[in-house]
């Protein structure tokens, strides 16, 4: 990042190689820009306010999941369970609103306030993440396997919660004092949907945490060289558990947003969301082997995916072709990423040689 700053300060004598690097560095942003221009030319409705609102809501979902996923991937892990946790948390929230907490021994049903329900749901997300993290660190299970297991377990629990049925009409009842849940999905502040504000808040906090706190630095260090981090006194296991908890928390937030937007909770909610989240992270230049990447990249990556998907839909491209195009874009992004990493290394070596 500060290398970027250095490049800017030397603008007066930017060499060709440096411009090349700058362009590569901003590639996701450029790709986004190009996509927006192409789609707005091809489709007159693309840049209408209504379309932008819908698109941003879609982007917010991927971006929030992507933020949690970025932490995990920066440590060199992966979290396949986020889509299922979205579904499970939606079901938890929906169940609490429509059915409340049944306390059989007292023969009463407690209907918590919506705020309490949201906190409980977010807590459930943290818990699921903590379980994944503990399985990974204490039992030395590969993250891929541990979170694959969690993917099935959470989806199964989501289905079990209602025997596969949907919790519909999550508006609560005034006499029970649990109304107001749909506001999260439908409400606006300054004309902008709450989900987008949540994305902005999460992104700002996450960017700050990764860049400016010891925890963030340790996340990068573990992804770069776990052994060196351990010998430097980093509590590797603790940090790893925390990143899966963050990912679970973000998934729970998305579960709340979606069920609130739909005013219903369906157990299949969030299926395959993990793949979009991973794609957003990777498009944003975060290395799957860990140690390299950024939150800002992930946000741009989420926008690229969102714009691409909605733009293609708007153009009437068949959903089959959409998948082909999306897949190709993701692979292309990683190829460019490798290219940039190599260029950056070469540039660093050159600077060092000029010194000698």
């Amino acid at each position, binding site marked *: 990042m500060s290398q970027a700053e250095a490049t800017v300060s030397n603008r007066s004598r930017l060499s060709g190689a440096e411009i090349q690097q700058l362009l590569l560095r901003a590639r996701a942003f450029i790709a986004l820009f190009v996509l927006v221009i192409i789609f707005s030319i091809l489709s007159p409705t693309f840049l209408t306010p209504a379309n932008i609102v819908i698109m941003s809501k879609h982007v917010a979902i991927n971006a929030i999941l992507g933020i949690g996923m970025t932490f995990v991937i920066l440590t060199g892990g992966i979290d396949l369970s986020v889509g299922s946790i979205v579904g499970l948390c939606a079901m938890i929230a929906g169940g609490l609103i429509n059915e409340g907490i049944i306390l059989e021994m007292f023969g009463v049903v407690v209907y918590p306030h919506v705020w309490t329900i949201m906190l409980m749901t977010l807590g459930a997300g943290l818990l699921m993440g903590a379980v994944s993290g503990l399985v990974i660190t204490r039992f030395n299970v590969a993250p891929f396997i541990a979170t694959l297991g969690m993917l099935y377990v959470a989806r199964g629990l989501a289905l079990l919660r209602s025997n596969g049925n949907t919790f519909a009409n999550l508006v609560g009842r005034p006499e029970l004092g649990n109304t107001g849940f749909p506001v999260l999905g439908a409400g606006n502040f300054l004309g902008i949907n709450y989900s987008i504000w949540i994305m902005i808040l999460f992104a700002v906090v996450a960017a700050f945490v990764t860049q400016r706190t010891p925890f963030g*630095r340790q996340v990068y*260090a573990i992804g*770069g*060289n776990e052994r060196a981090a351990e*010998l430097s*006194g980093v*509590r590797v296991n603790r940090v790893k558990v925390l990143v899966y908890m963050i990912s679970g928390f973000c998934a729970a937030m998305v579960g709340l947003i979606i069920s609130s937007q739909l005013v219903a909770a369906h157990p299949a909610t969030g299926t395959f969301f993990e793949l979009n989240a991973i794609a957003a992270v990777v498009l944003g230049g975060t290395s799957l082997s860990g140690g390299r990447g950024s939150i800002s990249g992930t946000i741009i990556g989420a926008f690229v995916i969102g714009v691409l998907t909605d733009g293609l839909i708007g153009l009437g491209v068949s959903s089959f072709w959409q998948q082909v195009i999306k897949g190709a874009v993701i692979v292309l992004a990683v190829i460019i990423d490798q290219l940039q990493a190599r260029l950056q290394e070469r540039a*660093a070596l050159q600077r060092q040689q000029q010194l000698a």
Partner: protein
Amino acid sequence: MNKMAQRADSADAIVLRAEQITKVFPGTIALDKVDFNVYAGKVNVLVGENGAGKSTLMKILAGVERATSGKLLLDGKVIDIHSPHDAAEHGIGIIYQEMNLFPNLNVTENIFMAHEKVTNGIVIDRKEQRRVTQSLLDRLEQEIDPDESVSNLRIGQQQIVEIAKALAQDVRILIMDEPTSALSASEVDVLFGVIRDLQAEGVAVIYISHKLDELLQIGNYVTVLRDGKLMAERPADEIDVSWIIEQMVGRNPASLFHYQARELGGELLRVENMSLPRLGGGFTVDHVSFTLRRGEILGIYGLMGAGRSELFESLLGLHPEGSGTVWLDGEEVKASTIRQRIQLGMTLVPEDRQREGLVQSMSVADNMVLASLKKYLNGFYLSRRKESASVDRMIDEMSVKTAGPQQLISALSGGNQQKVVVAKSLLTNPQVLLLDEPTRGIDVGAKAEIFEIMNRLAGEGYGIIFISSELKEVLAMSDRILVMSKGKITGEFSRGEAGEEALVAASAGGHGPSARRSHEGEAERPVSSFRSRSSR
């Protein structure tokens, strides 16, 4: 120039010639315009210190690495070797220093890996493979079952399998990179017999070893590398061990280190009965007790596998299964985690800079502050100002040559990377510095700088314990020397009384009559055991 004359005189035919080979790695020049001749039917010895470029040169010949520039001539014709497969096509075989066997497969399968004997071009001919394997093992006078899984073999036996694997391919040129480091004396004799047979068949052997007397016993030509440069090439019968050492080390290494007499302070560290059990019985660190005073440089000498690195790791709290008591500054250390021990003032500069010391994907600055992040907190976030103040001071104090604090660590030379690791340790405000082979693989100038830093720190009252396998370094730098062997301390010498012979004798202590048997303890470890980091 007299080198050229030498070559013209010699009647032996050069089968393979490497000309002006240069290999640049990020941060270092591993080989700098090196010429190397391989004579047919001779044992061509290659010697040099760690990091001199021997293994890199061999990897280039074997097709594992590609030279940055230079050419290879086989029988006078330029050849291109892009892969180990190409090398094999040209009849070049290699036995690596590190084991390259598949522990999950049996001996026969290992020997024919990627060169399987097949019938009809599809099916593996197990019978024929087994027969050839058996005859190879007979030739090597080994009673190893061709069907035995490699993971069940001793290290020495595995080395024999490596040799058999190379022999199974009809090689004209066979590279042996430290083939005897894991062999017992009798196995070495068998190996030498095989080498002489190969010679008689016209095979050119390239032989790398650190055991200098062994080299002169088996070798015909000796080539010396130092710091990636060719120093000399001579027929073995014209030279002796002292000539080799002179060529290897160059200027008298003692001139690198100038010991500064210091006032030693009071007791800073006391270690009692430090033990670390070994998988499969016995101890890697065997009830070790010692003390360290303020301002003291304590050297620890020993052979590979003596338990020195494990002692450091135990001190830092890396092995919860270990036992023993540590007093720091008069107080018993109760803290058990690495983080807590670092906070108490103990810090480790690990032996393997790349794997344990640095985070390659991070910048110089980020690496430096990694172990001391708490210091730069402003509330709950890191203050850039505080960070860069520390980083700039360290870059200056240690004279780290870097294009800037934000430079990628991987772009720095080995010596400068090492200074960054030391700086990272110093920023934790330590009292005791544990330096594990701090000068391994860095160039002569950087070594001298590291020693200067050690002197300065000791002068400031730090307690320094440093592990080294280089006798001259230990003797020159230490106030006191401990010698370890098989996990035990087998000798303690003050600066005045220590001598090379005494250290070597002590380092072989507990190893029985022959120093060559020194690795048998290690040989019991199966290759598959995770973390079997042979402590070199």
